């Protein structure tokens, strides 16, 4: 079970090579298969996730939640997906058409690109970049531009307000997000995600870096525009922020991308803080799924428990609290490593 997928992909490559393909083409075809699997799993998983979030949130708030379509309402999201597929595509006549149309596509492309470096099991990684962690931060920063394009292209006051707020919020929380991971890089001395996972074979980094974990969690919540930091799309105030004018499939792409980002960030958190794919008894790829789901449950829990935070509080919380704390964490980690070496512990 453990190396099921690795054996499968090796067999596939060997089969392609036996057909007379060069190693490069065999690799490219294998990559295409891997990509298809990732996208299929992500897309299907999201229908489950949305159903799960709606059920879980209803229990948090003592409601019933979707319970009519299928047992426990589990076909609700399938019905929603079909509905979105058959909705008319409306482009407002005032919109900046090209920007309006490309924004959702770019948003989902950025979200899917994040999966290229996530280790989904022992040796199961599309690319094990030597700068993997930095890749995640850097590519993730591109989604701000996509949101701006959506808000700008709509030529709608709600959209533009929501988008600019989202951009301001996301750039503000990008700094603590990047700073909080530095402590881990200092301990492992590598940006390669597989090495970061291996460094946790003894102790998980959530134990060594609890402050970094909290800062990263909060910053990631804001970066994902999830509650209690969902000011940019606050339904009651901005009628849906940057997504106001979008309908049908384009809107679905935004929604899909948001959840794709959520899964990617949760997977990264389990990789970096919770020991990645390591765990006893079960195969590595099941462990990462379990851990990712646990992290996502915490995201749901936080979203449906705390009320929305006001915009000015939200901004000053990052600048005046999270950034100083994460800088302090870097210095503290540095001093700690020196202390450790001095005592001869490591």
């Amino acid at each position, binding site marked *: 079970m453990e190396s099921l997928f690795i054996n499968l992909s090796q067999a596939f490559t060997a089969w392609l090579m036996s057909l007379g393909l060069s190693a490069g083409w065999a690799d490219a075809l294998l990559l*295409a298969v891997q990509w298809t699997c990732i996208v299929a799993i992500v897309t299907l998983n999201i229908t489950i996730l949305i159903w799960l979030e709606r059920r879980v949130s209803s229990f948090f708030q003592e409601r019933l939640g979707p319970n009519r379509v299928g047992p426990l309402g589990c076909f609700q999201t399938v019905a929603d997906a079909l509905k979105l597929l058959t909705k008319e595509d409306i482009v407002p006549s005032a919109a900046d058409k090209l920007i309006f149309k490309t924004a959702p596509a770019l948003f989902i492309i950025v979200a899917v690109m994040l999966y290229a470096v996530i280790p989904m099991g022992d040796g199961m990684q599309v690319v094990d970049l030597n700068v993997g962690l930095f890749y995640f931060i850097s590519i993730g920063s591109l989604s701000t531009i996509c949101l701006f394009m959506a808000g700008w292209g709509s030529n709608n006051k709600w959209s533009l307000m929501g988008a600019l707020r989202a951009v301001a919020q996301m750039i*503000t929380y990008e700094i603590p997000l990047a700073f909080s991971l530095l402590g881990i890089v200092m301990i492992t001395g590598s940006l390669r995600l597989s090495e970061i996972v291996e460094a946790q074979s003894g102790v998980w980094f959530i134990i060594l870096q609890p402050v970094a974990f909290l800062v990263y969690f909060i910053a990631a919540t804001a970066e994902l525009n999830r509650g209690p930091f969902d000011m940019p799309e606050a339904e009651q105030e901005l009628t849906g922020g940057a997504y106001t004018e979008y309908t049908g499939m384009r809107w679905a792409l935004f929604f899909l991308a948001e959840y794709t980002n959520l899964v990617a960030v949760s997977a990264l958190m389990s990789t970096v803080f919770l020991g990645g794919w390591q765990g006893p008894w079960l195969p590595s790829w099941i462990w990462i799924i379990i851990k990712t789901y646990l992290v996502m449950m915490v995201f749901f829990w936080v979203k449906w428990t705390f009320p929305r935070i006001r915009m*000015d509080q939200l901004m000053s919380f990052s600048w005046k609290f999270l950034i100083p704390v994460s800088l302090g964490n870097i210095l503290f980690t540095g001093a700690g490593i020196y202390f450790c070496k001095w005592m001869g512990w490591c």
Partner: protein
Amino acid sequence: MLTDYATIGVFFLLTVSFPIAAMALSWIFRPKPKAAPDDEKYTTYECGVDTRGKTWIRFRVNYFLFALVFLAFDVETVFLYPWAVKFQKLGFFAFAEMIVFIAILVVALWYAWKEGALEWH
């Protein structure tokens, strides 16, 4: 064998096909009614009232200030990451150098804070 970045490149090209496929799929299934371009449904949504004035107007200086302080810290991130990778091998002098570097940027943060550039209005 593909190199790491060639793999990223191919992955990107494959990913581009995803939204295209999604839009094509919806094009097959969605209704495509013929409506005049000045039809009611193509107007800008504003909770039922007609929209007035321009959307693309001047915004507050706040946004710009945030972006600027952000840029300074973003550049700092870029310097911090290589340092963190080599932290354990570089020795104490490099640690001291980095403390000076961070301290200078903390002064920048403090100044922006003091001048109220970090306040949201």
